């Protein structure tokens, strides 16, 4: 299993060269963590919406991430679009894929009354099917986006590339929009109503089917963007979604089911924690520590998922 948040060129190495004085360490890990958390923030916010509304852990969401990156490669490299212009159709297609998984697999299964723990197994099956379908079509090799020229910016001794900054800005815009959508609009209220009491929501004239399709679309777009930004930082391969989904699920469960706010905070914390552990030891240890922390948090909570 490769690293979940790929260690970034330059910044980690530069920081390691400077030596681990505590103040620098904290500053650096917050800075790098924020830069690198953007795929995780998007993925966590999208994932938590589906989890909130339909009440099961959707492993196939990882394929929204992977396919988002591959759609971007298709538009960017395959069709020769400008990098920034290929982001939009790629994210929309990822959203459409997510809606398709809901309509053709998850909705029929939910209608048949499949239990939540079996829904997860179903989603893992779908995830494998999509992933290896992709491998069959395009091969398992890494593919790269043809990116615009990279420029480095310097913030008091800390480096960031223009792409990282653009990703961060886009994530902030998207996250604010999503936050506004969920907590400030009528549609957000409808989602929350439906998640809390489906019968009551239906009686009030809410069409659960329509809302679900919209939510799965928004979640898919978020996943697709997350995949594109992971692709920007490193490369796209068929396993990237699977590698990110585990940490995403962890973050969402720790944050509390359906809390977009919590997912936002928890993913930033996870990003900072990852870069901190990466700075003081090996990148892979940060994953080990995160996963162990996750098991311990579940145990402390005594099984309540929220």
């Amino acid at each position, binding site marked *: *299993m490769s690293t979940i948040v790929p260690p970034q060129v330059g910044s980690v190495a530069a920081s390691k060269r400077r030596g681990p004085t505590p103040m620098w360490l904290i500053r650096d890990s917050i800075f790098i963590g924020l830069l690198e958390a953007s795929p995780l923030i998007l993925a966590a916010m999208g994932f938590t919406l589906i989890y909130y509304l339909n009440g099961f852990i959707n492993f196939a969401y990882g394929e929204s991430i992977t396919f988002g990156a591959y759609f971007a490669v298709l538009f960017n490299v395959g069709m020769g679009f400008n990098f920034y212009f290929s982001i939009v159709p790629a994210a929309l297609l990822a959203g459409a894929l997510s809606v398709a998984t809901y309509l053709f697999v998850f909705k029929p299964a939910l209608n048949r009354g499949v239990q939540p*723990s079996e829904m*997860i*197994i179903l989603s893992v*099956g779908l995830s494998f099917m999509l992933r290896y379908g992709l491998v069959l079509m395009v091969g398992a090799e890494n593919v790269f986006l043809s990116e615009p020229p990279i420029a480095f910016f310097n913030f008091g001794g800390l480096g960031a590339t223009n792409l990282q900054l653009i990703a961060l800005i886009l994530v902030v815009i998207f996250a604010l929009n999503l936050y506004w959508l969920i907590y400030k609009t009528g549609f957000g209220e409808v989602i929350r109503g439906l998640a809390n009491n489906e019968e009551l929501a239906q009686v009030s004239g809410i069409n659960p089917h329509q809302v679900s399709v919209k939510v799965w679309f928004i979640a898919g777009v978020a996943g697709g963007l997350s995949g594109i930004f992971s692709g920007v930082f490193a490369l796209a391969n068929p396993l990237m979604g699977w590698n990110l989904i585990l940490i995403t699920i962890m973050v969402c469960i720790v944050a509390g089911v359906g809390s977009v706010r919590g997912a936002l905070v928890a993913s930033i914390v996870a990003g900072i924690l990852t870069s901190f552990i990466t700075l003081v030891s090996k990148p892979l240890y940060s994953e080990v520590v995160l996963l162990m922390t996750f*098991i311990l948090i*579940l145990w402390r909570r005594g099984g309540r*998922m929220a």
Partner: protein
Amino acid sequence: MAYLIFSLSLMLIYIGLAQMLHVQFGLLGIPNFGVVGFWGLGMYAVGVMQVQLGMSFVDAMGLTVVLLVIASYFLGRLILRLERQAILCATIAFSAIIALLAVTEKWMTMGVVGLGTIRHPFRVLGLEEILFFLFLLALIVVMQILILKLHKSRLGRLMVATRDNEELAASLGKDTFQVKIVAFTLTATIMGVLGGLSAPLNQFLTPNMIVPSITFAVWISLVLGGKEHALGAMLGVFVTFGLFDILIETYAPVSPEFAVVVPNMKLFFYGALLVGVLVFRPTGILDRKIKPEDISAALSRGMSTGLAGAGRGMQSFAKVADEKLINRKKEDDQ
């Protein structure tokens, strides 16, 4: 021929894993998605002890069992009280931790370079693989017989009752957590032992053997074969592993270009099969062995003894009440 024996031995390992998962998920309802974690832990433990410490296979296996019992008991204590979705995530996290540690702990596992060579335990020239295969076969047969017995036993019914309604089973005085933790420790340890047994089969260990697709292959076998049927695990592995890994990869006349695609195609079909089975026939090919009626019958038998006790209590209560009534009547008369 040698390759066929290797494939068949591997198939027996998969059957064993699926059987253990049948006990965990089919009977007890513990969704263990970290099968490859226990398997990999056992495999690497045997490998490290044999190669780095120069132990014999039997000694290494003995110590591995101790290690596995400790690890799975500890993990079980942490997670078995949780709800099912949480157990599933925690076991996946466990297997990811094992896979990561196999990469990072280079002083022990040699990291991505790989660890080898692990010798076969039977040192008979030319017959090593055959003997090992027969040993595995005997092991799987014994486990299958034990599972068939378990299905007929009180313990098996208690497991199913724990799965379907833990509160009810607990209210009848059964220690359901103990059942779960003992069964989980035992079956997870056997999963690890099967991993230890696949160490000499693979001979050379690398961290990229500990991949989620093994967990997934075991799950699809079990769900396809029938998760609640005693023979479901075995049938499922015959259909998936037997069909794809043995018949197609070994015997089907495929061109070299196509042969590269086969493993990916296999996982694609596994995924499609799993989706199809869960949506259209959730019980798998073989239906459940223990019918819900049997469980409710067994439970109502338990209930009726409980009710009889309660009835006795009621009788004595009624007697006391009667006496009081009679006394009051007497008082009234006076």
